[in-house]
């Protein structure tokens, strides 16, 4: 088991190194920030001074070397746009996105597990058809459109909630709701499918014959065995949350990592792009290892040799 975790960590480390190379060179391919940060009529000396101050006068490989040297000391460099350490900006924005994604994912999981399990108790029944249709519709909604329509209905029309910005709890409701809908729809379908096959297995028949309560059979016996595919899909959805976060944070003006990254790409703020991608990837790697450990915990038959 520990050997497996070591292998996984090693694989993650290799991928991380590939990612660092990729993000460094890709970011620099997007263009020279000098033109963006200086006025068009800036004299050549000013341009040269700007390039020199930010290290852009060095050959690309030398820049990469400096970047790696600093990275080992956890120095991600300074943001060009905001003139602050890039890692500070990223770590400041990260919790907002994490709370946003975490809340959305938790709600999605709970709703999907309850609705999917109840639907699976009676396949093709009224409740099952209803849950299935709602889940399908939810999984098919483009989140930017859902965001616009919900702003239209709840903020512009009914005036119950604010359109965008930050503040109290009411500012969180629409973004969380928009982020929840698609994972919830997808997960409900997975839960339903896994539960239908779990409920038709022999141990469920045995439990039923012994007179175990139906609720216990569904939510204890069957659910535990249906958990593996649910966790796989939930993990994929959780690591995909950053995509949803970009869109939702742009529309609702949320100061999270998605908006920070989008703006940094627009402003060729290399240090922040690099720090953001590396921190996000580290979180995704960590999540994947936790998911693998959860497999082993849930199903003792899985021994990672």
């Amino acid at each position, binding site marked *: 088991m520990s050997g497996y975790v070591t292998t996984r960590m090693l694989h993650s480390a290799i991928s991380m190194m590939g990612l660092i190379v990729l993000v460094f060179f890709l970011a620099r391919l997007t263009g020279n920030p000098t033109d963006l940060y200086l006025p068009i009529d800036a004299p050549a000396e000013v341009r040269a001074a700007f390039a020199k101050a930010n290290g852009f006068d060095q050959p690309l490989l030398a820049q990469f070397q400096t970047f790696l040297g600093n990275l080992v000391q956890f120095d991600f460099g300074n943001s060009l746009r905001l003139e602050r350490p890039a890692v500070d900006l990223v770590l400041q924005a990260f919790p907002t996105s994490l709370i946003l994604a975490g809340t959305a994912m938790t709600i999605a999981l709970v709703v999907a597990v309850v609705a999917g399990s109840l639907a699976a108790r009676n396949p093709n029944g009224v409740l099952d058809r209803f849950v299935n249709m709602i889940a399908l519709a939810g999984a*098919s909604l483009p989140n930017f459109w859902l965001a616009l329509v919900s702003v239209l209905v709840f903020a512009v029309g009914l005036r119950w909630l604010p359109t965008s910005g930050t503040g109290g709890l009411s500012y969180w409701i629409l973004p969380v709701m928009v982020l929840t809908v698609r994972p919830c729809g997808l997960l409900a379908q997975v839960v339903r499918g896994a539960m239908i096959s779990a409920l038709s297995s022999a141990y469920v028949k045995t439990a039923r014959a012994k007179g175990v309560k139906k609720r216990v059979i569904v939510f204890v016996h069957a659910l535990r065995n249906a958990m593996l595919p649910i966790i796989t899909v939930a993990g994929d959805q959780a690591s995909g949350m950053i995509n949803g976060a970009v869109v939702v944070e742009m529309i609702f003006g949320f100061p999270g990592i998605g908006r920070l990254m989008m703006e940094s790409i627009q402003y060729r703020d290399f240090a922040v792009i690099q720090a953001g991608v590396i921190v996000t990837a580290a979180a995704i790697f960590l999540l994947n290892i936790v998911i693998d450990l959860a497999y082993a915990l849930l199903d003792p038959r899985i021994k990672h040799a």
Partner: protein
Amino acid sequence: MTMTLSSPAPGPAPAEAAAWRQSLGLLWRDKFAFAAVLFLILVAFAACFGPWLLGPAATKINLLARNAPPMSTQLGWLYVLGADSLGRSILARIIVGAQNTMMLAGCAVVASLLIGSLLGFVAGYRNDWTSGVILRLADILMSFPSLLLAMIVLYVLTPGVANVIVVLAITRIPIYLRTTRAEVLEIRERTFVVAARVMGASPWRIVWKHVRPTVTPTLVTIATLEFAFVMLSESSLSFLGLGIQAPEFTWGAMVAQGQSYLGTAWWVAFWPGLAITLTAMSLNLLANWVRIATDPVQRWRLETRSPTHG
């Protein structure tokens, strides 16, 4: 209909024909799936003939109809869904925009399906260092948030039709790769593959003649679901202004354009978004139905699949 496609392949032909008849029956019985297929045929028709039929109507600026509200036929049936800020008919633009939307998603799905499954076959069949390299590359792609990767690449490459397809395809390759590899790993240990190997079949022959047909149904189901997903991704990119550029447009770009008129003319953003939703939903319904329709043949796959795969 499709059953009359007589293939010279001996053996399973009658069973296949029966399966087709059975699935057509299933399709008719499942009214939602039937409606989904009808809607998709409608979208396909719009994608093929829309620009030819309504091309001029979709770009004609009509200042009298500026932000004309929907559900009124005063200006003619073309304006039944309203008009945008330049007085262009939204219905015509949705029908014409179907072509770009479907073309981008379709090309991206086919490209990532081909590349991903090819790499998956290699990684699954040759379980050595090549497999390791391919899997690590896939890991890198999967840990890079796909929308951010797409944004950076599109800033590098400028958002043209081909580049948008490339970006969408690249980010979706790992899905096919991992699924194909998982399936191949399992199938290559099964008796018929071992038998073929013992009889001296070359690896390429085994993969093409024995492994590929077994994996294809799974890949087709995934590709159907992916079509919906890629269409939603493309819409997000267009919405963020990184999709294909004006005067070309897709449904996602139409929603983006309507965003600024949300308070005064909701219909500009609403209808194209509804078109995206309905198409994605029809594709999901179809994929679901395909899965159920093929279930008796596929059941072993669900039962023998180890959870660590895919």
